[in-house]
């Protein structure tokens, strides 16, 4: 046992029954998976870490600190852990299906899994694991144990009794209340954690408080996102250092964010905008972590929910099995009797793996969606399906560059409610949204599905095209660019700005360094935006000598500028025989 393991054991008070329940994992015929659940701050992490400390070979995976993809999880957990302890499982809801269907079944028979989550496992989990699942709810600490915790952090017995009268054994509240009472001995202890957090926050020095305000809008705090405040925050009792950066306890983060949003919405927006600019800057090389940081800034519920689901998943969403064919066609016939059913049957024959289904606990198909790469749709289907023809006509008129993916979402239907908003339909839409993260997706074609569906999809950027179809173009930067646009809505983010002092141009949130000459030319043209600027004038005013003809200095500078403007190069127009014109960037 190492030093950390000893400390993990020491911290645990009053959880003997729960520890005993976890130990049943090792009994013959005992459960394979144990789920500890309770509200934020109820001591789940402390409990499962204490249990892990009893083992030589425990692998601890923290949902906050890993990439929530199969690859990210496998990297953290390994293929054959002996005891796998997963903390903050609510951050891994995206992996729910994969864990239940693929990862857990692949583990050796002697592996045991312990999970800590905010919510009790849903019906799908109970159906999957049956008697092999042990659910351990974590309530408040008993009064004697709460007193032991409070006395352990330096309160006298009388203070401990008074504090616990208010926090009623909620472990995080006990810690916060104890710190608050030590700082403000005369304080009246309020009842909820948020208020306790506020009381604790009042005692922070202004710089740390300001850093916390800036940090609370972030998914994780890295040195680049919070250069001045990183070290200040690292020392706070509710902040943990993980491989991905600092993670602030959710309860405190949510409370700080809500407080700031309510009391100073302008500053809240400014912090989000500053975070947006930095994340935007890091996006091209930041990989998954930066994408996730950006998603955390998006307020659009469908997108947020797709990547950070806030509730337990009640449906298994997965690729359809051959036996699902009839159930799927039945759903189609129910909502679109007639030729559409025959057409969807052709789709099934051509691309069965494009069908995704949402299942009720025992496996009944309750909804399905069809999503695949447009290139995989065979020619015959293109000819028969008028929607495909509409997609193709649009694609011909607006081709995408080589190497960028085009997805086709043919239909999504729920058995009961068709394409009207419903829990399982939303689960399917989220699944479609997630698919965008794979490869460089440029465009998603879909079908206009009536006012209710269009209303759900319009905020994501879907526009109607001819033939009853819709299209969502993610832009040249694929998902990164699309998400940045979504996050930038309502944020005071200036997308393009020229900083002549630093000789930098901010373009779509990315910073482009300019030479002195390029900067001068761009500034000159921007000041005359929309007007035709003669070569001679540009040369005279920027270079400062009379136009002698033949010099290609201007062309070299313009050419360099266009290269740096990238996809915006066309905004710098050549007016043949005269000069140049800048249109707004």
């Amino acid at each position: 046992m190492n030093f950390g393991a000893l400390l993990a054991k020491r911290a645990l008070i009053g959880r003997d029954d729960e520890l005993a329940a976890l130990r049943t994992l090792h009994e013959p015929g005992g459960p394979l998976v144990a789920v500890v659940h309770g509200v934020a701050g109820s001591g789940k992490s402390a409990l499962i870490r204490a249990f892990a400390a009893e083992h030589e070979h425990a692998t601890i995976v923290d949902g906050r600190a890993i990439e929530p993809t199969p690859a990210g999880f496998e990297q953290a957990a390994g293929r054959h852990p002996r005891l796998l302890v997963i903390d903050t499982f609510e951050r891994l809801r995206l992996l729910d299906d994969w864990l239940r269907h693929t990862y857990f079944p692949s583990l050796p028979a002697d592996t045991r899994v312990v999970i800590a989550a905010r919510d009790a496992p849903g019906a799908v989990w109970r159906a999957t694991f049956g008697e092999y699942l042990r659910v351990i709810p974590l309530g408040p600490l008993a009064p004697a144990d709460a007193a032991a915790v409070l006395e352990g952090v330096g309160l006298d017995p009388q203070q401990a009794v008074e504090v616990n009268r208010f926090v009623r054994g909620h472990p995080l509240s006990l810690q916060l209340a104890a710190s608050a009472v030590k700082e403000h001995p005369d304080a009246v202890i309020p009842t909820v954690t948020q208020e306790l957090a506020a009381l604790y926050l009042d005692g922070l020095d202004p710089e740390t408080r300001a850093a916390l305000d800036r940090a609370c809008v972030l998914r994780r705090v890295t040195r680049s996102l919070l250069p001045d405040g990183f070290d200040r925050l690292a020392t706070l009792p509710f902040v943990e250092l993980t491989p991905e950066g600092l993670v602030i306890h959710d309860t405190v983060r949510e409370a700080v964010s809500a407080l700031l949003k309510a009391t100073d919405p302008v500053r809240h927006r400014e912090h989000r905008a500053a975070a947006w600019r930095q994340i935007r800057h890091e996006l091209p090389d930041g990989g998954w972590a930066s994408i996730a940081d950006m998603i955390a800034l998006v307020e659009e519920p469908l997108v947020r929910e797709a990547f950070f689901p806030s509730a337990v998943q009640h449906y298994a969403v997965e690729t359809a099995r051959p036996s699902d064919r009839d159930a799927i066609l039945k759903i189609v016939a129910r909502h679109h009797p007639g030729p559409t059913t025959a057409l969807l049957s052709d789709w099934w024959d051509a691309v069965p793996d494009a069908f995704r289904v949402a299942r009720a606990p025992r496996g009944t198909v309750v909804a399905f969606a069809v999503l695949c790469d447009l290139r995989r749709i065979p020619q015959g289907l293109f000819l028969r399906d008028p929607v495909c023809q509409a997609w193709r006509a649009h694609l011909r008129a607006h081709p995408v560059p080589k190497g960028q993916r085009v997805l086709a979402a043919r239909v999504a239907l729920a058995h009961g409610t068709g394409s009207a908003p419903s829990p399982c339909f939303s689960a399917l839409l989220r699944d479609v949204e997630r698919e965008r993260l794979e490869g460089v997706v440029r465009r998603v074609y879909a079908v206009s599905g009536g006012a209710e569906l269009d209303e759900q999809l319009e905020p994501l950027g879907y526009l109607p095209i001819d033939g009853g179809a819709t299209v969502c173009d993610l832009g040249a930067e694929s998902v990164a660019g699309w998400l940045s646009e979504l996050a930038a809505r309502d944020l005071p983010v200036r997308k393009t700005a020229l900083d002549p002092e630093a000789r930098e141009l901010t373009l779509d949130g990315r910073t482009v360094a300019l030479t002195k000459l390029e900067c001068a030319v761009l500034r000159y043209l921007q000041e005359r935006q929309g007007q035709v600027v003669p070569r001679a004038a540009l040369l005279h005013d920027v270079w400062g000598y009379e136009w002698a003809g033949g010099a290609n200095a201007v062309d070299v500078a313009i050419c360099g500028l266009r290269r740096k403007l990238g996809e915006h190069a066309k905004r710098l127009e050549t007016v043949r025989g005269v000069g140049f014109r800048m249109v707004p960037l």
Partner: protein
Amino acid sequence: MNLYLVSRRRAWLSEEELAATADCTPAVLGIFDGAVRWVRSYVFEEADGAFSADCVYEAESVERLEEYFDAMMLPADEIRQVDRFAAA
């Protein structure tokens, strides 16, 4: 067809779980091809946020009804066949 009154105590732990059950019902009933029909449910919210319900079904037999509950993963605390109606 017989009429049944089914009691479920704290069968749903959250509002979402309850909504998910309602959402799945038509599809699962669909595979019973008329042998089971859900008439209506009276839902109660318990003090701790869980939900209980008394549900009325029509079914060919109690066995078919139990088959349906299994397909929905919805345990029943009590199933009683209704003998007669009393009008107010």
